[in-house]
Structure formats: C-alpha cells, structure tokens
C-alpha cells in the first residue's frame, strides 16, 4: 500500500492528545456504555460470577475494601464473604489454594496486590499450576485467573517494588497464558475469556489505565485469547505494542498521519501464547517495524517480537527493526527521573520517522 499523501483538510485545529477517542472498538449501532478500564474488569467479574457459581474471588483486602485499587469494590456486597474472600498475606498459598480449588472443579480468580509480589508465589505459579497438566499426563486442568496490577508511569508509580512490568516472567513458562489488555473493551472481553479458559491465565492490569474510559457493549461478549488486535490499519509502518504503550502508539499514529505516514498499530493483548501470524502479516505488509513495550529492554517482549518479525517477514523488511522499551533499571521514585524510564509517544514518533527515512 502506498503512503497516504499529506492532506491539509484532515488537520484539526488542535494537535492530537491522549484521549479515549484514539481507540474505537464498538460500532455506533451497538448499545454500549462508556466505562473505565477498572469498571470493565469489575463488570467482567460480576457477570462471570453471576453466570457460573464455581467462579469466586480470593486475595488480600479484596472484600469490603475492594482491593488495593478498588477493582472488586461492591462485589462483596453482592456475592458475600464466601465468594469474595479476604485472605491472609500469603501469596504462595493464595495461588496454591486457587490451584487446588481449580483442580477439583472451581474457577477461582485470585488477586495479587501488585505483580511485584508474585515472586512470593512464583513456585506455585511456575512450578505447580503451569506444570500440573503435563506432569499428570492430562488428568489435571487448572482453570484459574491470577489478576495482578502492573506498571507505572505518569506519577502513578510507587517506586521500585510496586511498579514493574513483568509479563515476560510468566510468558517464559509454558503452560501459562498471559494477557495484558489496553482498553476497557479488551479488559472486559479478555477477562471473561480468561475465566472461561481451562488453563491458568495471568491477567495483568496496567495500573495507569484503570481510569481510562472507553465504550463497552451492553451485551455479553468474550474476546478470544492468543490473538493480537490490529488497533489501527496502516500501510507504511507497523508499530507493535501492548498495555499502555498501545495508547502512546495510537497517539503517535495520529500525529504521524498528519505528516503523511500511515501507521498500523498491532496490540499484543495476549502476550503468551503469542499470535505470531498477525505480527508477521503486518510486517510483511508494511516492511517497517517499530516495537514498543514498557517492560525492561533486555530480554524483554520487544526482543521476542523482533525475532517473530525476522522469522515471518525478513525478506519484506525495508528498514532495520527498531525497539523502544523501558530502561534497564529498577524504577526510581521521583517523577523527574521516573519519566525517563518509560517510553512514550515522543520516542515512537522519532523511531517511526527514523525507519521512514
């Protein structure tokens, strides 16, 4: 596809800014409400708990308090202490108990307060839940969801032990599925799919996105796991991103459109198992690829995606692949230095202009 010509009539009076209008996922004739990412997660939980008695929640302070970020607020009032269950601070046993309940037919949704605390539960996640199906030759299935807020940025971070983006910790373990939604629509549809999935699913919630608003259909819907989503079609450059970085990519794409650069944005909304085909197809189409993730650069998601591009689209590439990622440092506290750690739309603009040269 040829690059779009610069068209003065498409310029609005003001420069594009970060807003819900950057992403549109619901057709005009579909009955829908505008809700936040956090509300979308809560409604997914509410609907699945209503639909299926085997779904229940457990985690630290999730009952009346609603969890550290208020995601489960009001669910306690509706479903009571049995199904919205406060636990002691015992991450390993929260996850292990979810596994045990799942092995005998329940569908637990456990919450770990911050993904940073998952280290305490890593044996139960990576050695037990992820491996039981294989180790038992298919006798076991572990249909749980582990919800964990992650990431930081823009003043929402709380320093090094509450701000990491750790999707690759889990993506490296076969047997787990890893989901990282970027919008309210995706968060609801993916969480419902995760709860109905018969495997252990790591559901990562971007803290900074909790307050982001977007349209969510009134009717029941699920979004299949293990599929990337093309958030914006374009012919010149592919930007692959996940989580909050999808929004930065969309903002950059809007600005670049005014320069006549037609960007395609691929949202890796399921990190693992990875939908390589969608990334490969887009890379073959555009021949230019920029990868963006908030997680640390070294051994991070962008390195994996780059290899996918090499394996699926090497002969089509017209420029070297560029990656933009979080810097290789524990997250510092002060805003002035924290800002320098995360990538943003400015980085994406520079990278895309670079690969277009």
């Amino acid at each position, binding site marked *: 596809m040829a690059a779009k010509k610069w068209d003065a009539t498409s310029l609005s009076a003001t420069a594009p800014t970060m807003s819900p209008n950057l992403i549109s996922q619901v057709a005009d004739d579909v009955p829908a409400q505008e809700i936040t990412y956090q509300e979308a997660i809560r409604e997914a939980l509410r609907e699945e708990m209503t639909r299926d008695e085997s779904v229940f929640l457990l985690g630290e302070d999730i009952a009346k308090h609603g969890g550290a970020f208020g995601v489960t607020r009001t669910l306690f009032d509706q479903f009571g202490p049995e199904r919205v269950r406060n636990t002691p601070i015992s991450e390993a046993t929260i996850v292990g*108990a979810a*596994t*045990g*309940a799942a*092995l*005998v037919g329940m569908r637990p949704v456990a919450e770990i307060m911050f993904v940073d605390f998952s280290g305490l539960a890593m044996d139960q996640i990576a*050695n037990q839940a992820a491996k039981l199906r294989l180790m*038992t*030759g298919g*006798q076991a299935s572990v249909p749980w969801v582990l919800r964990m807020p992650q990431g930081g940025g823009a003043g929402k971070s709380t320093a090094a032990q509450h701000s990491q983006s750790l999707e690759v910790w889990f993506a490296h373990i076969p047997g787990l599925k890893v989901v990282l939604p970027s919008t309210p629509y995706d968060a609801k549809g993916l969480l419902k799919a995760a709860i109905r999935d018969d495997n252990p699913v790591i559901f990562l919630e971007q803290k900074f996105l909790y307050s982001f608003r977007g349209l969510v259909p009134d009717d029941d819907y699920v979004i299949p796991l293990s599929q990337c989503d093309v958030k914006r079609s374009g012919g010149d450059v592919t930007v692959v991103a996940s989580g909050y970085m999808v929004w930065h990519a969309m903002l950059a794409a809007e600005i670049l459109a005014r320069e006549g650069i037609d960007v395609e944005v691929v949202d890796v909304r399921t990190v693992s198992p990875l939908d390589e085909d969608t990334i490969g197809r887009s890379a073959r189409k555009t021949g230019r690829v920029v990868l963006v993730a908030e997680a640390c650069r070294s051994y991070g998601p962008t390195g994996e995606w780059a290899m996918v591009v090499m394996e699926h689209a090497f002969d089509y590439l017209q420029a070297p692949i560029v990656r933009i990622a979080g810097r290789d440092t524990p997250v510092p506290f002060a805003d002035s230095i924290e800002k320098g750690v995360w990538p943003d739309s400015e980085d994406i603009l520079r990278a895309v202009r670079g690969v277009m040269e």
Partner: protein
Amino acid sequence: MAPDTATQIKMYRQMALIREFELAAMDLFKRGQIKGAVHPSIGQEASAVGVCMALDHDDLIVGTHRSHGHNLAKGASPERMMAEILGKDTGYCKGRGGSMHIAAFDTGSLGALGVVGAGNPLAVGAALAFQMRGERRVAVPFTGDAGTNTGSWHESLNMASVWNLPVVFVLEDNKYGVSTHIRDSTNIDDLSIRAQSYGIPGVLVNGFDVLAVYEAATEAVARARAGKGPTLLVAEAYRFEGHYAGEPEVYRERSEVAEHRKHDPLTHFRRVLVDTGVASSEELDDVDSAAKDEISAAIEFAKASPDPDPSTAMDYIYA
C-alpha cells in the same frame, strides 16, 4: 479401638505391596532401567497406609517426591505406577511425570509435587472447594519433616485454620531432609507443637505403628468431616534408605540406621497381627508372596508397554 480383621489384613497387604514396590523400584533404578531418581519410602509404610485407610474414596491426597507409598495406599494400580516410573505410555501420567509426579485422579490422588512444601496450599484449595460446595470430603497433603520449614507449609496451616477447612496435614517425620537431620534444621523436639501457632490440634504418633497412625488419622478425618477444621498429624518414623536409591549416605552411621530398622513397621505389624490372633504367620506369608507376585506382574506389564510416541511431546501443555 482396633479396626476389624479384614481391615487389618488389608493394611498389612498394602504395606507389603509398598515395600515390594519400593524394593523393586530401587533394584530397577540401580540396574539403570529407571532414569532420573527414585525416592524410596521404606520405613514409612505405616504412615501412608494408616492415613489412607482412614480416608474415603472421594477424599483427596497430595503427595511429594516420595509418594509411591501414598499412591499405592490410596488405591493406585501398581502396574500403571510401575509403567509411569519406567516412563511408559501406559503409566498414570503417560510417562510425563515419572517417579516424583504420580497422580491418579481416579483414586483421589491429586498429584505428587517435587518441590518440598508445595503440596499444602493445593490441599487448602481443594478443601475450600469442598466446604463451599457443602461436600463432606477431606483433603490430605503429605509433607516430610524438612518441609515444615517452608513458608507455604506454615501459610497453609494458618489459612486452613482461619477458614476452618477440612484438611488433615500429615507430616511424615523421617528425620532427614536429604542429608540434614531435623534436629539440625529445627529447634524443637516435637513438631506437632507447630499446630499451636495456628490454633489447631497437633497430634504426634508413632509412625512405625500403623494402628496408631490409623487411629489418629481416623479421629482427625472425622473432625474435619464434621466441619471442625484442620489437624496437624505428625507421624514420627525414620528413612531407612538414602534420600534416593543409591545415595551414599555419608552423613549418618550404619549403626544409626540399624538401630531404627529394629522398629521396621512391617515386622512390627506382623508380630501384632499374630500375637492378637488376627492372622497366622502362614497367612501373612501368603500375603507377602502375593505382593511379590503383584509387583512382578507390574514390572512385566511396564516393560511390555510402549514408550510415549515422540510426536506427542507437545501434548498436555494446555487444556
């Protein structure tokens, strides 16, 4: 009160079967016919059988790396177990698990875990499901003495206590974590007092005495089933063999092992059965030889079974 004659004979039979299975597994391992490792439970047959005989079919157990005995006691087939540890397609786990990971869901064995201390949380979750669904079932995780120093072991006792769950936490004190004696890793003599921290009963029994284990387990299971919450049951025994088959045991004297072998749970129970007139020596000899035959047949079955097809290597990763 002692269980009826048939139950006692069945206990002896199960213990003899475990002993023969373990001896056969060690022999096959030393001959290079089993790869990886074999962790024999010789000397601990009474706790496996005493506990599992106190359970119903629908009750669940969670095992460890040393769980051949637990699985057999819960009713697993020696043939399918032997096939599993030989890595055969006819094994319980289709050769994916091996000696350390035998699960037999049809008998109520949820799986054996190779990470020490990891089993308690699974039992807590299963018991939580039973409680939420109003099922009168009990979950029983086995852990060795060394596992009582892991965080999840303690977390689980606490959580089960807070939620009043039907769990019987069995701690098989065989005195060693690999090479480290429990007195060098724990500063208390009676491990059952750990229950006090969590406000639940802690019971110490002679783990060489199957009837004592059975009596204590029966009480703890009844308590759990009646909705009165969890119990910690410590069965004090001794690991007669090395940590794994062929392990050199440089950390203990032969004389120490010989001293404990005087309390062999099978010899002890045989004497009890004869002394109390439950069975004659000849009848028990017959049980012993039947156990030998059953294990020989299991080995034959396993050896005649096909290996898993290499094309299936990626099966059973996702449901």
